[in-house]
């Protein structure tokens, strides 16, 4: 393998608190040297990153690759390539496939598919309960042996509090988090969008913030009781951020993630019955967005995760109430979030931290840094490049984006996974 040298980029590596212009040397797929000027040896591949940001490959703790079972929506082959285009080198896939990933052979199947057909690293998440039915525990220990990085019934909330307590107790010695989709199903019943005047106007059943918050509160208390690591998926409300903050102040082992759309889009997007803006949890209000951003800034929220949820055209080209929930998010993540940086809501190093060291820490520090000796997962992006979202050009099979036609600023131009270029946009690589 040739040496790879990334020259003159602004290197931002939050895990090592590093932010300076310099070079990176990659040898044998491993980060060798960071920051100081590297002189190119003969035959080494040089990438000019002048004016660009160079950072650890992004880590997505929450996405849906749909395989097995829903290959019309996405496959591991298309999903991982879409992720690489979005700057990701490690992605964790949710187990709500068909069949759901609730046992060892299925986890092994997904892992082997990912090795054969995936462009980047895929880390599966196993179900908490068998079949995601919320009735009995899945084979958690066995799946942990196969390398799942946590347990989640994502899409479903584990309604039975006693079963959730057992899951937390059981997961604790395995050293893996319970990743909970916090939504009380009774409060959210028939819900199509955020509760409020827009839902009233559209005649759609609303989902109140409390549907999420009562679930967050319960699980925080169970985490306190059991000492287990609770990770709360896709936080969407101000109240959830406050609960998480409360929990962290009491040293309860809880972490949280937020999705790009919940940081940037409000419920108004649904007007006109725009099924592309139908997502669960639903798009909320400006007040919630502000609280979520505050949560990122004060460390309450640890991670930004896409909740990439690809769907086929017909899943969305239908009545709002019949449409599938979810946003295809890999390929617009950076562009949509860079607006928060441009408007001064968050800093660029903070954004990168939430996409690299934040999720990396949850994964035991194995990924999300440019520490010498680490596997060379590197993302290079142009923070100033403007581009227009055209879902027809998505690599993902899921063209379902509420950002269609919008101009975003900030574009990934090169993704390196394990020392090899897995995505390149318009940069010239000699």
């Amino acid at each position, binding site marked *: 393998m040739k040496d790879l040298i990334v020259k003159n980029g602004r290197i931002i590596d939050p895990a090592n608190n590093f932010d300076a212009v310099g070079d990176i040397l990659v040898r044998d797929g491993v980060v060798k040297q960071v920051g100081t000027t590297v002189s190119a040896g003969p035959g080494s591949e040089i990438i000019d990153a002048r004016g660009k940001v160079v950072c650890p490959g992004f880590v997505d703790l929450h996405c849906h690759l749909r395989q097995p079972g829903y290959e019309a929506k996405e496959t591991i082959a298309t999903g991982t390539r879409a992720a690489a285009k979005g700057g990701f080198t490690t992605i964790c896939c949710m187990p709500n496939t068909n069949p759901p990933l609730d046992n060892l052979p299925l986890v092994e199947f997904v892992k082997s598919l990912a090795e054969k057909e995936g462009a980047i690293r895929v880390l599966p998440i196993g179900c908490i309960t068998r079949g995601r039915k919320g009735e009995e525990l899945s084979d958690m220990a066995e799946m942990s042996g196969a390398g799942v990085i946590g347990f989640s019934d994502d899409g479903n909330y584990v309604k039975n509090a006693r079963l959730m307590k057992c899951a937390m107790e059981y997961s604790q010695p395995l050293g893996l988090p319970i990743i909970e989709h916090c939504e009380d199903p009774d409060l959210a019943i028939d819900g199509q969008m955020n*509760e409020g*005047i827009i839902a009233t106007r559209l*005649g759609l059943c609303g989902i109140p913030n409390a549907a999420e918050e009562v679930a967050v509160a319960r699980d925080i208390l169970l985490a306190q009781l059991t000492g287990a690591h609770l990770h709360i998926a896709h936080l969407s409300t101000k109240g959830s951020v406050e609960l998480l903050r409360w929990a962290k102040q009491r040293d309860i082992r809880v972490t949280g993630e937020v999705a790009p759309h919940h940081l940037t889009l409000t419920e108004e997007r649904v007007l006109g019955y725009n099924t592309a803006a139908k997502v669960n949890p639903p798009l909320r209000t400006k007040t919630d967005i502000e609280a979520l951003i505050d949560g990122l800034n004060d460390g309450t929220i640890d991670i930004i995760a896409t909740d990439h949820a690809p769907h086929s055209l017909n899943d969305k*080209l*239908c*009545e709002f109430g*019949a449409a599938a929930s979810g946003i295809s998010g890999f390929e617009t993540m950076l562009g949509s979030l860079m607006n928060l940086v441009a408007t001064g809501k968050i800093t660029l190093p903070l954004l990168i931290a939430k996409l690299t060291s934040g999720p990396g820490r949850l994964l035991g520090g194995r990924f999300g840094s440019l520490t010498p000796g680490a596997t060379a997962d590197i993302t290079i992006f142009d923070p100033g490049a403007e581009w227009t979202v055209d879902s027809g050009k998505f690599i993902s099979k899921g063209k379902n984006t509420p950002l269609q036609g919008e101009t975003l600023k900030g574009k990934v131009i090169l993704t390196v996974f394990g020392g090899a270029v897995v995505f390149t946009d318009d940069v010239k690589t000699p």
Partner: protein
Amino acid sequence: MIRSEQIEPCAAAEHSGAWARRHVLDIEDFSVPEIELVMQTTSAMKEILSRPLKKVPALRGKTVVTLFYEASTRTRGSFEMAAKHLSADVVNMTAQASSVTKGESLINTLNTIEAIGADIIIMRHPLSGAHYCAAPHVKANLVNAGDGWHAHPTQALLDLYTILNRKGRIAGLKVVIVGDVKHSRVAHSNIWCLTKMGANVVVCGPPTLLPEGLKTAQLLFPGIGVETNIEKAVKDADVVMELRLQKERMQSGLLPGLRDFIAGYQLDSKRLALTKPDSIVMHPGPVNEDVELAADVLHGGRSVVNDQVTNGVAVRMAILYLLAGSREQ
């Protein structure tokens, strides 16, 4: 006012200024002049309905399809009657509710009906916004005959016409809408239409059956009031409109029971006495007699429930007529 002689196919072009719409999906996006045009056209249609021969050739050679994904007696019958008075051929189609979420997509169904030869499709659908999803994909004119909790535009127009007919004006009237406001497309469309036309609308019902966010929606619905006490709500009202209560509301825990609803929200003669002496009583039907309306109020002198039904035919004739005209532009 449009004179009845004008209601001939060739006259349609005269409306091109005020009437540009191909579909009637909602009342929310109607301008005041458009609503006024519908009212004027409805008057002309009422005149036709008063003739011995209640038929004009405006829609001769056109096919109107009613496509109902939900059961309906009066709305469907009203549309069918309206289309027939205008000499259209009418085909009634009933879709299975089960095919709403499974099987053939709505867009495919509508395209099939178009291929059969529909010029105007009148659709009722249990999911809010179904018409919005379909409209960009159909060439026929699409008329919303009710979608989910969202809208029932022709009902709002016939209610407006009925009030206008009885009161001579809308602006400044106190109109109280009572009952299951949250799940009522009739209420939703009436709120839009009546506030747009300058009425003071008060919605009243048990807290579980009131929609969220109305109180603070003064920009959308100027002057709207929200009240849980019916005595306060109906005081000095010019119009009281009771809504149909669905049995499911009790089963799903939104209401303790019928007795409670009747005690709290039925319009009886005692409550009617709190309204203005010349107030009118409305209901979109079908009425649960002695639930929303006490029998003596329903059948009493203030009730305009039957007028609503009669006016419904004229309003729907007006809508079909205006749409057929727009189609030829």
